[in-house]
């Protein structure tokens, strides 16, 4: 083997070795790499107990309740399979609204209500003009009205 081929092999082995090691490490840390867990995972009991965590989902339409004259509010976060009641007191990001993706940070109380100390809005990858969004919304409403009930039963952690 000529010196140049040896160097080529060495460089190749370094790249493959580092990629494999990183891949295995990330695979092992998969759960802690997740920025948030889904509502279904919370219902299944797959969330870190006794410490704060983040849960992500959509704000369910018509579920927002505000206490008059204060910043206190409650709403439901849903992944269209399970719902999770969330209570929060504080300032909301601009994008917070019904149907919007949100990430709530806090802990799950004994009563099953998630007490959030921080609400972040999650933007999706779609960019469009307001007129386009309006006409699209009407269209999507027709297509998905049957799905609103949720296609799957929400699992329970007791079973």
């Amino acid at each position, binding site marked *: 083997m000529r010196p*140049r081929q040896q*160097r*080529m092999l060495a*460089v190749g082995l*370094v*790249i493959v070795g*580092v*990629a494999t090691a*990183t891949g295995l490490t*990330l695979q092992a840390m*998969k759960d802690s*790499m*997740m*920025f*948030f*867990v*889904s509502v279904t995972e919370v219902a299944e009991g797959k969330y870190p107990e006794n410490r704060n965590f983040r849960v*992500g989902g959509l704000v369910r339409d018509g579920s927002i309740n505000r206490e008059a004259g204060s910043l206190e509010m409650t709403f439901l976060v849903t992944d269209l399979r399970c719902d999770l009641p969330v209570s929060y007191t504080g*300032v*909301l*990001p*601009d*994008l*917070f609204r019904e149907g919007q993706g949100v*990430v709530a940070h806090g802990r799950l109380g004994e009563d099953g209500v998630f007490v959030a100390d*921080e*609400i*972040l*809005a*999650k*933007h*999706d*990858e*779609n*960019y*469009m*003009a*307001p007129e*386009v*969004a*309006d006409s699209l919304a009407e269209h999507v409403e027709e297509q998905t009205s049957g799905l609103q009930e949720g296609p799957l039963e929400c699992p329970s952690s007791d079973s």
Partner: protein
Amino acid sequence: MWKFIHKLASPPHFYRLAAQIVPWLVVPGLLLVAYATYAGLFLAPADYQQGDAFRIIYVHVPSAYLSMMTYMIMAVSAGIGLIWRIKLSHAVAAAAAPLGAWFTFLALMTGSIWGKPMWGTWWEWGDPRLTSELIMLFLYFGYMALRGAIDDTVKADKSSAVLALVGAVNVPIIHFSVEWWSSLHQGPTLVKKGGPAMDTAMLYPLLAMILGFSFLFGALLLRRVRAEVLFRERRTRWVKEMVLSGGT
């Protein structure tokens, strides 16, 4: 073919050729950025959710794209330099690093400015996309610091090349972070199934900006490689002759 590559890799030839190429990159680059700035600010409609705040995308996406592209250029050049012992290749890697660091910084900063009103936070530790991009900034810093710490050019080339290659594993992690794990950052808009998820009136200025940034990056890179080559070859006869004859 091989003859052409050997000629290209010869420092005096590259030095002259690069000077001739630079204007051909600067002119279209400036034109594209000028068009994209005007179109992005005035012709593109406001976004249905983000309003005018979405327009920061015209700096954020080109910067983020070039931050990763520059790292790949740096790592590939360093690898070629290691295997084939081409000095010009190492010079390209060394010249690319500060540019990549600046693009990474720009991507992080514009993302942060956008994140505060939209997400409700400047920065979230633990988010895979944000964290992996920050790690890349530190990889650039580490690469530059390592080069700076070693006086001998050949040794600096070799050790920094290994660092560049090892760090390259981070680039696919940045790209796929939003698909492998849950993240606050949205998924890809441009490169996705079914084409870009964006109005064409918003899309064309963005593509023009990406192309314009790339042209200007190419011009900056060539200028930096020229300076790097000149410094490395400062004791050779062709540089002496060029300086004595008053050329640049």
